[in-house]
């Protein structure tokens, strides 16, 4: 239904309501598209839409301007109902140069809106990306609603009396774009202007320039009647509460801080920078006032080593990394497992093997997390399902580490680490309890005595008189911890260490099932595939399929009710952004012939590809046929 609204300029305009919109901003790395995207996301969030985002940027800092490699993109899905992913295909695409067009146009929905900065379509730029003819002229974009705008020129014109260099003025074009789309989606201008003023409060010149560019874009859309209609996405029915839009990495950092605060212990992060994990380090380094020490170590081994040392001293020891760094932490993780100290290792997975595609996402470190240490050294593994879920998972990882005196591995990945969604702020005092109780009684203390319920050994920290003891990697006697090469004790300790991890199953809530409790198929996922799987299964259910979705947060130990759950469905389908790592565990544990849907493209699943493939499997068709 189309209604008539009134724009700020007073003109009457046509406002078409929409349930959801997927918009993608794409430009050169230096064009500021990440900022535009983030700001437009904030507008949507405040308007009450449900949102999900997916930034996608190149491995190079600044690849040569105008090349495909240098293209940086930011996608936002905003809607009047619950959304689970940043959307399969954009219906609106904003591109700042030929490279961005070339790299993104294939994704744009048919008849989608395509906004282009014509100024950048110079012969030279076209040549750089091997366009023979100018696609803006040759009719090749006819199936889209093409809006050709001299964005650069218009921006610099709007700022021409400010005394800025051309370079400085040109930089503001991303705010011009923001103005355009803000008009297009019927956003109030005030919020963005407030933002600009806050963000650039120490640089009033910049604030003014960006404000002007923004309004120029907005007004340009308004006055030129560039767009025949504008759109409105109403607010979504969202649970009451206070929200903020959060990326997975920020949520992970906050989860750690909240846990340390609840435990009443200082937080020690030992880390070495690596994409896409570095932001957790950056975040945490800001929270010194909350007793957070961040230590940028000389390498990943030193990162985990320092965290173990800090844990020995009574701090909440954390180390964060991505795949290659987790490789390097293997030996020290084995030590932490053997000495049974609490520790959390967060692995923000990226596409491998080796250096791989460092800015792209993948779920291919699961078996490394499970088995990547010599000897028998099982460890708990927890995986976050969405940006906001990172908070609770990080919190839980600390809680379990401390309660069971064990290292815990937390898995997230580039997709949710950089992607964002609204996060309902928790009440700190309603978070699950984390109690730290250090041993103090010299008379009864034994380094390896065990708690009956958790099998945890006591945490006794230096500074406690009478509890002096020595830890180490050599096998030790249960109870005393003294070095022991007794064969029976080694077997006992091996089993105790395994059993301790198994006991964590008592913490795991029953599996939640979205859909029928039994039926033709259950789709089981873990980690960041939650969004696409959830949306795909919903759609299939709407189509009348007997299919359910259940998502695993605890991968080691697996939930105790999982095996029985799987038996209730004729087929078990496991989509993963790897070659079938969870599938292997499920098959080995439950002897079910789980079928995989595997994607190794450095990109999350789209809902539609999952819908297609799940259907195919349910129909007994070969997957190759639909690929």
């Amino acid at each position: 239904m189309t209604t008539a609204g009134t724009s700020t300029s007073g003109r009457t305009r046509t406002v078409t309501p929409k349930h959801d919109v997927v918009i993608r901003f794409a430009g050169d790395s230096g064009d500021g598209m990440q900022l535009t995207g983030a700001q437009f996301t904030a507008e949507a969030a405040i308007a009450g839409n449900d949102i999900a985002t997916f930034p996608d940027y190149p491995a190079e800092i600044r690849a040569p301007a105008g090349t495909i490699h240098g293209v940086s993109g930011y996608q936002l899905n905003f809607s009047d109902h619950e959304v689970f992913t940043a959307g399969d295909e954009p219906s609106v695409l904003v591109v700042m140069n030929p490279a961005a067009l070339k790299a993104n146009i294939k994704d744009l929905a048919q008849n989608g809106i395509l906004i282009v900065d014509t100024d950048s379509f110079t012969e030279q730029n076209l040549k750089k990306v091997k366009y023979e003819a100018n696609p803006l002229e040759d009719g090749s974009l006819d199936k889209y609603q093409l809006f050709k705008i001299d964005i650069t020129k218009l921006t610099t014109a709007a700022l021409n009396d400010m005394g800025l260099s051309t370079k400085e003025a040109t930089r503001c074009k991303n705010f011009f774009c923001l103005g355009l789309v803000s008009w297009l989606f019927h956003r109030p201008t005030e919020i963005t202007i407030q933002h600009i003023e806050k963000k650039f409060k120490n640089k009033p010149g910049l604030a003014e320039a960006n404000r002007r560019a923004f309004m120029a874009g907005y007004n340009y859309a308004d006055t030129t009647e560039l767009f025949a209609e504008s759109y409105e996405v109403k607010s979504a029915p969202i649970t009451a509460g206070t929200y903020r839009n959060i990326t997975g990495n920020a949520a992970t950092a906050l989860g750690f801080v909240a846990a340390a605060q609840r435990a009443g212990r200082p937080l020690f992060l030992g880390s070495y920078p690596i994409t896409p994990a570095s932001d957790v380090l950056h975040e945490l380094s800001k929270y010194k006032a909350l007793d957070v020490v961040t230590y940028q170590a000389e390498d990943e081994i030193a990162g985990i080593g320092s965290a173990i040392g800090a844990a020995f001293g009574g701090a909440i020891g954390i180390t964060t990394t991505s795949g290659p760094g987790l490789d390097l932490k293997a030996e020290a993780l084995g030590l932490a497992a053997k000495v049974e100290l609490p520790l959390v290792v967060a692995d923000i997975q990226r596409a491998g093997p080796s250096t791989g595609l460092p800015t792209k996402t993948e779920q291919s470190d699961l078996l490394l997390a499970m088995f990547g240490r010599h000897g028998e050294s099982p460890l708990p593994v927890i995986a976050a399902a969405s940006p906001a879920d990172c908070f609770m998972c990080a919190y839980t990882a600390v809680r379990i580490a401390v309660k069971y005196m064990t290292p815990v591995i937390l898995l997230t990945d580039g997709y949710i680490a950089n992607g964002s969604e609204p996060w309902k702020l928790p009440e700190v005092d309603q978070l699950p309890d984390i109690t730290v109780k250090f041993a103090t009684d010299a008379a009864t203390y034994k380094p390896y005595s065990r708690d009956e319920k958790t099998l945890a050994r006591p945490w006794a920290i230096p500074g406690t008189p009478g509890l002096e003891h020595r830890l180490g990697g050599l096998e030790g006697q249960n109870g005393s911890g003294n070095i022991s090469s007794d064969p029976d004790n080694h077997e006992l300790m091996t089993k105790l260490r395994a059993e301790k991890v198994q006991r964590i199953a008592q913490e795991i809530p029953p599996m939640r099932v979205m859909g029928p409790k039994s039926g033709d198929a259950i789709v089981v996922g873990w980690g960041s595939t939650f969004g696409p799987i959830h949306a795909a299964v919903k759609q299939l259910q709407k189509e009348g399929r007997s299919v359910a979705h259940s998502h695993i947060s605890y991968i080691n130990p697996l939930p105790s009710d999982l095996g029985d759950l799987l038996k209730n469905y004729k087929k078990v389908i496991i989509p993963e952004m790897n070659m079938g790592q969870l599938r292997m565990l499920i098959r080995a544990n439950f002897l079910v012939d789980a079928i995989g849907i595997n994607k190794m493209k450095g990109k999350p699943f789209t809902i539609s590809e999952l819908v297609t493939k799940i259907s195919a499997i349910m129909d007994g068709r070969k997957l190759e046929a639909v690929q």
Partner: protein
Amino acid sequence: MTTEATAAVKLTRKDFVTDQDVRWCPGCGDYAILSQVQRVLPELGVPREKIVFISGIGCSSRFPYYINTYGFHTIHGRAPTLASGLKISRPDLCVWIATGDGDGLSIGGNHLIHILRRNLNVQILLFNNRIYGLTKGQYSPTSEEGKITKSTPYGSPDHPFNPIGIALGAGATFVARSIDVENQHMPGVLLRAAQHKGASFVEVFQNCNIFNDGAFDYTTDKENKLDRQLRLENGKPMVFGKNNDKGIRMNSQMQAEVIEFKDGLSEKDCLIHDETNPAIAYMLSQMVAPKFPTPMGVFFAIQKTTYEEVATEQINTAKKTRPLTIEQLLKSGDVWTVK
């Protein structure tokens, strides 16, 4: 080490002996070092529970088991990493690292230079026996060129590290050397190391009587050691010899030479040891036998901020100037409310 020594505690050597059987080979130089450390610890006036010994892997790295304080026998080469995390988060503790020439200079070389650079207030004892003891006799980064060992039956093709040189190059603020058998000398060095605020690096020549027996005989030889060792004393001319009749002089092109006190030469011509001068320290590190006497004692000692004091200060300042609660933190950023 920590400066918060509490004079109240009065401990003896015995307080630092554990109930564990010591499992070094009979005759190993490690015994002498252990006993001297146990002799020095009570003098620090630090309560036992505030002391932590951290080690890697090697014969020498078994050290913590035999000292009745807190201890951590970690993994090969990584002791400095654990020590760093511990000391940064617990500046109140007195942290020692025991390591070997393999543990500290081969697999662990990087952590060693980084802890020295960052100047954490810890004491590092590097047991240099110029061999891998625990793995039964392969050559180490300090083994002499051409050395024949299990892994180099044709002789090692490597040039050895100079541990003192490495430590200085890394920016260490305290660098010293002693010898297992010199039980008059070592306690003084250990005490100085413990009292130094910042990372103290002490190379200890240690005899492995099983796989590299006699490696330091030339230097420790009872008869001649006074002619073969240069005992460093800050502010004093560099004089040595049975009769204190030799010294070290430096020419205008910065070349050191041994002079004998005759033909008008005397200790006045000798270089004065200055622990704060990196050039002197480095030159001393390059003096090797038999051309030169082997320098013993404190090569270098200067004051710099320690990592943990700056880190702690930042936290305290942040707490004062930008106090924050977890509730505030969670609610920071762009927050909106849905009713």
